[in-house]
């Protein structure tokens, strides 16, 4: 694939998936470009139905692509999946195991299919904190234990790439924290992680880079620091908000809203705000850049997509996207 580098672990170009049904053809993923580099813990964000899981399923060979190219570790998939899957651990959607087998039995079957011994099963069980419960039937597990077992399954192969689809879904707060710690630990150990999630705080806490999806397309991509740093709003507090609004709009600035005693002005140049207000004789009480978190970025970028807006977010080709 073009643009491939030795540090690129996952790359998709023009990836497309269409589902045909009685009601016609539905496009789940539309010409998606995604780049995940080695060592990243890469958040894969998007509203429900944006194409995250479908993309992951195509990468892992569970679904076929309608068009486009995919590569893992520089090798074109799905053709090269037999070679690359030995280094890929994945949890797709909810954990899926045989309910009447114990957790250990489920892991042993998977381990044996790749020629891995019971010692690795023991280590994986210990890593996810299931020791002592692994001999109970899977159907008796809580959702948190099921998620942990699924993560344990990914560790059987000693993966260089982990693909986790909503791994903290349904977990209680302590379970979420434990899973995050596991993911962070794997990231620190040099494992590249693609983490699909719609829990934005989770991505912000755990990930070094992120891609935001909307309607199957890449809306923004880059390091988390870059995405958050792309602040385009200023919070303006003055004693006379009406006069301030008039002055700012007269200067060609867009007032996007009001937040209590403050106006929100869309610009990344605070000097323009002070000059416009100064020239109009309106004195500032406070002027702060709005510190965006991933949630606001996500909402803004997905809303913009819905409205057909053209906000200049970092895209895979426009940033080095390296680990923060």
């Amino acid at each position, binding site marked *: 694939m073009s643009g491939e580098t030795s540090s690129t672990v996952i790359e998709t170009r023009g990836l497309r998936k269409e589902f045909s049904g009685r009601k016609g053809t539905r496009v789940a993923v539309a010409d998606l470009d995604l780049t995940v580099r080695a060592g990243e813990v890469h958040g894969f964000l998007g509203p429900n139905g944006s194409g995250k899981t479908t993309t992951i*399923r195509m990468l*892992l*060979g*569970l*679904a*076929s692509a309608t068009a486009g190219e995919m590569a893992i570790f520089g090798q074109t998939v*799905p053709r090269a*999946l*037999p070679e690359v*899957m030995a280094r*890929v651990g*994945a949890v*797709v959607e*909810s954990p*899926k*195991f*045989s*309910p*009447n*087998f114990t957790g250990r*039995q*489920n892991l042993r*079957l*998977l381990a*044996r*299919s*790749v*020629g891995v011994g019971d010692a690795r099963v023991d280590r994986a069980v210990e890593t996810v904190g299931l020791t002592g419960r692994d001999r109970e039937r899977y159907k008796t597990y809580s959702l948190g234990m099921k998620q942990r077992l699924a993560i344990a*399954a990914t560790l*059987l*192969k000693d993966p260089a790439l982990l693909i986790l689809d909503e791994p903290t879904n349904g977990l209680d707060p302590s379970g979420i924290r434990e899973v995050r710690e596991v993911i962070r630990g794997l990231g620190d150990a040099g494992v590249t992680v693609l983490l699909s999630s719609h829990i934005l705080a989770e991505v912000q806490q755990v990930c070094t880079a992120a891609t935001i999806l909307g309607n199957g397309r890449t809306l923004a991509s880059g390091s988390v620091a870059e995405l958050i740093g792309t602040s385009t709003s200023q919070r303006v507090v003055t004693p006379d908000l009406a006069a301030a609004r008039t002055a700012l709009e007269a200067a060609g600035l867009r007032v996007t809203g009001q937040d209590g005693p403050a106006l929100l002005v869309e610009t990344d140049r605070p000097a323009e705000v002070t000059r416009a207000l100064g020239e109009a004789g309106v004195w500032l009480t406070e002027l702060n850049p709005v510190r965006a978190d991933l949630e606001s970025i996500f909402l803004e970028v997905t809303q913009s997509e819905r409205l057909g807006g053209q906000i200049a977010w970092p895209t895979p080709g426009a940033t080095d996207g390296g680990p923060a």
Partner: protein
Amino acid sequence: MRLVKVELTRLLWRRAVLVLLALAVVLPLAVLVLRVVDTRTQSFDDIVAENGSYVVDEVEGCVRHPGRYGVGGADDVTAACQRVIAGWYGNSPLDLVEEREAGGALAAILLVTMVLMLAGITFAGHDWNTGSMSNQLLFEPRRERVWLAKAVAVGLLTAALAMAVLVAFWTGVWVTASVRDLDIPAHAVSAGYKQAVLGAGFATGAAVFGYALTMLLRSTVGTLGVLFAVGFFCVVVVAGVLGLEGGVERVMPWGNFVAYAVGGYEFYDYDACVMDMSGGGCDTGETIKRSAAVLYFAVIWVVVAIPSLLSFRVRDVP
């Protein structure tokens, strides 16, 4: 080979499969026990106790009119009459030829076949119902290997079990006949063992067929529904409504099964005579040969197995 071992383990860890395997042992054993009991030697008193006093009345009638019962010249008319009447009302002795061609052996093969086909269905259905198939493919993405490994595991296990059970069944029949000192026709025993081997092959094919159909339909219920619908169509619609004339019987599963297991199946095609305008005598007898039955089942098997493998290779896995 590693995958086959994994799938064998998965198969043997499944409780539902184990229950079905146990049934595949118990049901033919029950048939054997029933056949042994039904063909046991009975005293005249046992026959009277089982059938009532009219047996005694019948013997008395025979003693009064021995000529009517074909024992006119007997030295001991009463004993001769008891033998004749016992032959009517008492058990038939164990007959190895009949057992192979129309008796318990066919029932045993059929039961083993049905139960092992269910085992194949439930084995594959479980993977789809629980969604664990996708998990397995994350560890072995070569789908055709996964399909084949599972098929081989089902085939190996069911072949071994069916062979053991059907050989044991026939050994039971043979031992019973020997112990009872019955007349055993030449080649009857070897023909019985040959049928046991053929039956094991049939049951194995059916188990893999059930597996393949479930892999194609991706649902236990769907597979059972299709099999039921086909059975209903064959038996009720085709045989019941349309009738078996005109050679329809040639494509019915039962006739072909008997032809396969016994070596041939005879039926009568009366339409052939209706259509025969020659005016001469018309032979309505038709025979399905074993080779035709093998072809019949092989075509059905291939028509399901090949699309099953191909669709598993290309279709998205939920």
